[in-house]
């Protein structure tokens, strides 16, 4: 029983990342009709926002400590971060400690800008082009983005820890009188994802802006005829989608050390998630994200693995095939979307 609950928690956690990426992907597809293969790269850029902020906070000046030697036998240069000398060692150290949560603030304007520039500079010219062309150009962009990151940060994963206060584990089972410990940061990640998802949905549901966008998603031409500048709103939606993926990336960094190709790792999975959810359906994307996350976790349980060897390698794809064959347009897809 405990094991099952743990795996559900793991699934929700994996699902959070899938759902957040798929949500952005679906937003872009639903509003702009663009198949964006660079969305994984946006997630990766978000993660590297956190890395960058932590590097900025760690910018140091060097003092020479004659008592210690470095690897060449020269006197060791001891590095002290500037923030520690400006704000005192305690505040400075806690600033560095809290780099990842701070990066949320830092990353939002950056991600919005990245989204805006991408849409205005490139994607805009591809609305009327075939999906194949969109795939090629966004795939090219994804490669370029990740190679740029690799050029500056290298290929090795870069550790970006969570704040000490949020590291460690918590007993989540205490409420039910059970003993289930789970990493604090993973709980934070899931809650964060839930908040973001709720925010996006309420934005679309309850604001005029959101209503226009939803109307535009349903029938772009008619909304355009009403004299509403739908393109501008869609551009903003692209920025929001980028911000959602970026934030997912920022918060993901303590879970797994980010590297330059993490975007590609998530790209294929998030496409599967979007399609299983149904092209163009936001609730579908979220539902499919969590569902696949949980099923993936279950499949990696020893009992199930010993029953069907290798099931954890293919579970996502098996589920995708079964769902697409039983529900032609995924879980919640609309008819006629991306069926040509």
């Amino acid at each position, binding site marked *: 029983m405990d094991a099952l609950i743990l*795996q559900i928690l793991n699934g929700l956690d994996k699902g959070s990342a899938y759902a957040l990426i798929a949500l952005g992907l679906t937003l872009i597809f639903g509003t702009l009709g663009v198949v964006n293969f660079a969305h994984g790269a946006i997630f990766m850029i978000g993660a590297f926002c956190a890395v960058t902020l932590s590097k900025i906070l760690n910018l140091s000046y060097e003092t020479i400590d004659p008592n210690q030697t470095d690897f060449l*036998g020269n006197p060791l240069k001891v590095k002290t971060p500037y923030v520690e000398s400006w704000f005192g060692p305690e505040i400075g150290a806690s600033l560095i400690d809290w780099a990842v949560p701070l990066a949320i603030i830092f990353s939002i304007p950056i991600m919005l800008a990245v989204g805006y520039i991408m849409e205005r500079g490139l994607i805009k010219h591809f609305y009327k082009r075939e999906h194949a062309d969109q795939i090629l150009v966004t795939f090219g962009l994804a490669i370029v983005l990740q190679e740029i990151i690799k050029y500056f940060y290298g290929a*090795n994963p870069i*550790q970006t820890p969570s704040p000490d206060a949020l590291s*460690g584990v918590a007993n989540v089972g205490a409420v039910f009188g059970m003993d289930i*410990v789970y*990493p604090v940061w*993973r709980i934070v990640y899931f809650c964060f994802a839930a908040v973001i998802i709720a925010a996006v949905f309420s934005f679309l549901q309850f604001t005029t802006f959101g209503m226009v966008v939803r109307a535009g998603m349903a029938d772009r031409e008619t909304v355009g005829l009403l004299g509403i500048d739908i393109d501008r709103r869609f551009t903003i939606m692209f920025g929001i989608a980028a911000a959602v993926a970026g934030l997912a990336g920022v918060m993901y960094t303590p*879970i797994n050390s980010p590297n330059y190709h993490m975007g590609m790792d998530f790209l294929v999975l998030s496409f599967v998630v979007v399609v299983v959810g149904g092209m163009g359906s936001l609730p579908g994307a979220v539902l499919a994200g969590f569902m696949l996350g949980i099923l993936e976790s279950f499949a990696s349980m020893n009992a199930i693995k010993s029953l069907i060897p290798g099931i954890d390698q293919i579970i996502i794809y098996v589920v995708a095939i079964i769902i697409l064959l039983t529900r032609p347009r995924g879980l919640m897809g609309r008819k006629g979307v991306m069926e040509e």
Partner: protein
Amino acid sequence: MSKSTMTRRGVLKTGAVAGAGVALPTIFTASSAAAYTNEPTGGSVTLGFNVPQTGPYADEGADELRAYELAVEHLNGGGDGGMMNTFSSKELQGNGILGKKVEFVTGDTQTKSDAARASAKSMIEKDGAVMITGGSSSGVAIAVQGLCQEAGVIFMAGLTHSNDTTGKDKKANGFRHFFNGYMSGAALAPVLKNLYGTDRNAYHLTADYTWGWTQEESIAAATEALGWNTVNKVRTPLAATDFSSYIAPVLNSGADVLVLNHYGGNMVNSLTNAVQFGLREKIVNGKQFEIVVPLYSRLMAKGAGENVKGIHGSTNWHWSLQDDASKAFVKSFGTKYGFPPSQAAHTVYCQTLLYADACQRAGTFNPCGVAEALEGYEFDGLGNGKTLYRAEDHQCFKDVLVVRGKENPTSEFDLLEVVEVTPAAQVTYAPDHPMFAGGELGSCNPGA
């Protein structure tokens, strides 16, 4: 089966028939002009450095490439000479190899067997490389080793840790300086016994491909010999990034040691996840829970950051070693690039020197001559103490380091500390050891 002896004759025959029609041909595989593949005829000799330049091991590949460039510089008489000064053999003069200037070509393995073979082939076919070296994973090493055997050039393996490279898949033209899974187990076992006792329950998480399996087999055998009990061996997909669903079952499994048979990104993530789940603080069966990472590298330790502190593993070499050879190498590498070399850089540097020295001693670049010079060769002064290139399987036998993640690193490179240097005798095994059985070295192939 006696087909290997027939090979060359068949090739010769068809080659000659095919060649007869064209005027002035020099035939690649069967020429009377060249005694072996890519015999250097001018004033220079070309070596092929085939390392991962893209993909997850790109940084390791870049470090290997730095070491290769350094080795070439030293061979050609540039720089401070590095380990050429400490190497027990004094054949190398700093005037290239056999008086020929050393040149090199580079390629990208992409950590894929196909791409690695394509890259190696282009070095052999286009650039006339007489030796191929490099790589950062066992799949690639075995694939390229097979290719070099067919093409008739020497392969000096880079970082490859699978038992198969010099076991089931060993080849007469291939040589490995790096240690392997069995040696990791043999080196770690006594240290683990001292630290954690003989009554332990180990849980293995293993990358689900051949390298992972051979390491799992080796470590499990070595620890079981101590009296440890293996609770479970769980295979994890290569593509996995989040290991939480594999770590969670460890919590209630009754295990008190977790062995992570992972490398690269897999290892960084699985270790990070294991620490996240509080395994380090856990007390099981009244004992402190421990994590072991049998194959360590500094670059991986860097990726995992804080999480490696106090975690034991084994490594081929580490820059903090204080023997003359290691110091000379660190100095010459560090002066040129500004940071200490990784174990991958060390092994490929050694491989290059060993190859050059073997050519020099054999007086030829002919793969058969070089192989003969390397087989059973004993040397010292390359940072691992006294070392033997065993003739039976072309594996180097040398001391293995047991290391631990350092608690208080003084710099970003100072992540591991050497706990013990396990002497070579303790990690030596018989050539027909069951974990290495099934393969055949064959006979050396000079190509032509």
